[in-house]
């Protein structure tokens, strides 16, 4: 991995970011032969820092990667996980692709919309929820699947989905953990998950160490 030192201009652009995010940004840039490759990881970090992919965030990422803001916007808008509008604390996604559809995903989605009061594709509940239907998330054997901040729950029924919404709304957990939610609200799984994993997501950004929002015990 190559050594990366930010220019004064680059460093200034992200001086408002937390120290860990600044350090991670430099590390991410060091992982690729071409800094343009860091766009997607850096967009995740900008979401952590700014709450969603803001215009400023795209400018910041552009400065770090040598792209114009329009180019960053072009990339960010291609991918569905980069949210370009403010989102709730809990991004609840319901897979409604074919396998989940066959096993009642539409009813699960309807239950979540009803219980949260937030329609599909929108945010509400005083910033608590964003609800969206998503395409296949690779849990077809455990359909229907629901994701909270990209942490997965398999085999969800409409009733359990309502409980999940209430649990999130009333308990407002700091970290959502796939193991815990699966135990509380899940059913049949696509496969044996093996040992429990204690970590989860803090924000609606995938809880991946190098540029995500991992909470719970360190891995």
């Amino acid at each position, binding site marked *: 991995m190559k050594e990366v030192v930010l220019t004064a201009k680059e460093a200034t652009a992200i001086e408002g970011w937390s120290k860990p995010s600044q350090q991670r940004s430099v590390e991410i840039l060091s992982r690729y*032969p071409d800094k343009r*490759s860091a766009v997607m990881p850096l967009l995740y970090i900008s979401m952590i820092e700014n709450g969603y992919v803001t215009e400023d965030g795209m400018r910041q990422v552009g400065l770090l990667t040598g792209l114009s803001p329009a180019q960053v916007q*072009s990339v960010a808008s*291609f*991918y569905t996980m980069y949210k370009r509008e403010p989102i709730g604390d809990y991004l609840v996604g319901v897979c409604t692709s074919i396998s989940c559809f066959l096993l009642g995903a539409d009813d699960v989605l309807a239950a979540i919309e009803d219980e949260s009061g937030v329609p599909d594709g929108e945010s509400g509940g005083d910033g608590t929820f964003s609800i969206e239907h998503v395409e*296949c998330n690779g849990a077809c054997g455990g359909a229907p699947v629901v994701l909270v901040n990209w942490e997965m729950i398999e085999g969800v029924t409409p009733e359990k989905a309502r409980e999940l919404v209430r649990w999130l709304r009333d308990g407002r957990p700091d970290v959502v953990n796939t193991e815990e939610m699966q135990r509380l609200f899940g059913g049949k799984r696509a*496969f044996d998950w093996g040992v429990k994993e204690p970590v989860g997501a803090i924000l609606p950004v995938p809880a991946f160490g190098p540029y*995500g929002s991992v909470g719970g015990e360190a*891995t």
Partner: protein
Amino acid sequence: MKILTERMEAHRTDSHTIERYEATGGYTALRKGLLELGAEAVAAEVKASNLRGRGGANFPAGVKWGFLAPAKPAYLVVNGDESEPGTFKDRQLLERDPHQLVEGVILSSFALDVHHAFIYIRGEYPKPARRLQDAVDEAYEKGYLGSDILGSGFDLDVTIHLGGGAYICGEESALLNSLEGRRGEPRIKPPFPAIEGLYSKPTIVNNVETLSNVPWIVNNGGVAYARIGPDTSAGTRMISLSGHVENPGNYEIVMGMPWREIIYGLGGGIPGGRELKAWIPGGSSAPWFVPAEHLDVPATIDDTDSNGSMMGSGAIIVMDDSTDMVKAAHRIVRFYSHESCGQCTPCREGTTWLERILYRIVSGQGRHADIELLLDISDGISPGLTWPPLMTTICPLGPSATAPVVSLMQYFRHEVEAMIGDDDG
């Protein structure tokens, strides 16, 4: 016969740890490959194994490696963007046995003279990515990655790259664009990635499952692998069963058993005493199979293909007799319309047009003329509606959206007509 899932089945709590991996023969293939065999011999074993790509296209991995152009640097990119509806096998391999993949990546990079490998994991897979990152970190600590691996003089860095939510990035050239920080739009081919890939350098792109087989092949020899299963469907492979089936899940199988055995044997049949209506044999882009015609077709790559469908990514989606086939087709078409990158006119406009007509029919606003229209729009995306499909597009995503339309009209046209009813038009 189990290759990929043996460890995770035997050790359900810790198959993903380096301790368990090493205690069960892990990284012995690496020693053998790097210290005894040498790069050419490793490549020769993979070629001899007849291992075919497990991402969906089933192209022989050894042959693909042979296309790698000599220019340096070259790159290995692992396709972990598992997104084809019905498919969830790579997720299990990543979560439960990540070191198996890491060892496969190191061996393959060694064979290909690659010094920087990238593993592209779909953004919706944070847990698999975490497990894999832990495995990579452990491999660095143990000296399996980094410089002068095992004293062999071979250096390798591995970067895990998380996607951002785009099915199309499973197409290898779109994946490379995404990895370069661009929109995940498939590239024009030729040039193929082996000639001009990542950063315009020679690049091999292999699927997670494909490379997870490499340690076993190096340990046991390519010939031993080739001997498993039918000639042109060698080795074991993961299949993912979902939908209306008693025992959904991933199964590592030797190819060749008839579809009946997969659905009724492994799958345990249809729940609730219902009847099988149709199934999709290789991911949602595959044409449908129906019990009257296909239950006794052997589940091999070639037999599935010659019967007008494909094994694809090994995802089998089962539909029982309660299924509204028009709605099911609409749901699949909606997926491809949503995931179209938007480059090619026929795919961008055509898949969306298909989706809107189907939605109109499902909503009770269908017209009888829509049936021919759906087929003609499909024909504009995939001329002749033949199998394997021809395309007016750069990549096969567009034609994928036509498969459910054609299957719907082929087997369940009466259901469409019934739904349209009397359209007064």
